[in-house]
């Protein structure tokens, strides 16, 4: 089964994981810039990270026939200090035209603070300036509902924003409806301990439909599973979904969203 992994943090995964993804049928994967599990001490740390995302990871993926794309930003967790965040954002123009860069992400909120919101909005403006898509992270656990509402409210102030070029990720049962109703794309993240299980993700598809929605593993340095998307496809099969219904979620939909970026090609 061919599929696209639209959200994976391969800098924290082994080369063996690339092999597993390739064996499972992954044709392309997209890596949003994120918090690497520790706070970086300087903007230089991000400079190296952006090089890793745009130079090193595409080569590592190519060894397994997988196309690697990325998104750039300073993640919301490290964006709570606006001065530092702006230093990192000043690096983005040097990298934004590189051939595997899709857009701005994963921006968003972490602890739902005014500082995070300010930096979130400045990122959205960068995406508008370059006419690129946006990938948005929503907060974890108890902070998700409030953070998702704040993000949707904040995006309402960008009158020029094309909502079909914005995906709000990590939705669950309490946030999927508001994201889709507002005209954005929704991403479901399959995590073993938080976010969605395969069965809950399939339930969300049954409740909210299969338009403007994708699923991803968001595999990173934490407890996560790079095989989560093919495993969810297997669960869909067990629940008697047809191959074309499965392909719509794991291939056609990500393709439809991602090809809005001029640099995404398969």
């Amino acid at each position, binding site marked *: 089964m061919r599929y696209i992994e639209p959200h994976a943090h391969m800098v924290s995964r082994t080369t063996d994981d690339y092999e597993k993804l390739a064996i499972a049928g992954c044709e392309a994967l997209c890596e949003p810039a994120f918090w690497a599990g520790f706070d970086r001490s300087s903007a230089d740390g991000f400079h190296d990270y952006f090089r890793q995302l745009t130079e090193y990871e595409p080569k590592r993926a190519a060894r397994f026939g997988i196309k690697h794309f990325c998104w750039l930003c300073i993640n919301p967790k490290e964006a709570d200090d606006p001065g530092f965040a702006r230093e990192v954002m000043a690096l983005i123009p040097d990298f934004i035209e590189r051939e595997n860069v899709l857009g701005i992400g994963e921006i968003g909120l972490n602890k*739902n603070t*005014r500082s995070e919101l300010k930096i979130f909005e400045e990122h959205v403006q960068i995406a508008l300036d370059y006419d690129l898509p946006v990938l948005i992270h929503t907060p974890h656990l108890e902070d998700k509902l409030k953070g998702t509402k704040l993000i949707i409210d904040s995006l309402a102030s960008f009158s020029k924003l094309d909502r079909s070029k914005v995906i709000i990720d990590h939705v669950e*049962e309490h946030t999927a409806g508001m994201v889709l109703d507002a005209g954005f794309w929704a991403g479901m993240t399959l995590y073993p301990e938080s976010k969605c299980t395969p069965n809950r993700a399939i339930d969300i598809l049954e409740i909210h439909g299969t338009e403007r929605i994708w699923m991803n593993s968001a595999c990173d340095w934490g407890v996560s599973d790079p095989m989560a998307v093919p495993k969810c496809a297997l669960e869909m099969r067990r629940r008697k979904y047809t191959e074309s219904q499965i392909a719509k979620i794991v291939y056609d939909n990500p393709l439809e969203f991602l090809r809005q970026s001029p640099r995404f090609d398969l």
Partner: protein
Amino acid sequence: MLSKKELLNLQFIDARARVIDLAAFLDRLERHEGVGDIRLEYFAKALQVLQENRPDRAKAVLEVFSDMTPEISETAPFQGATGAPVS
């Protein structure tokens, strides 16, 4: 879509195991020393939702565990999340 019967055949054992796990978790808490905290109150509320006759229990449980305060602080008072609004 699968029928109710087909879904039970596919998932009943798994759901049964999860309910027993929850029961054992509560027993374990009971046996152990010390005092719990507000997370247990949210947990009890979530368990009540399971007994309600409604089509959106998962959403309602997630809402029980969500921060519903309207205030927005300037910067984060602490990092991380605990799974329930504890502060």
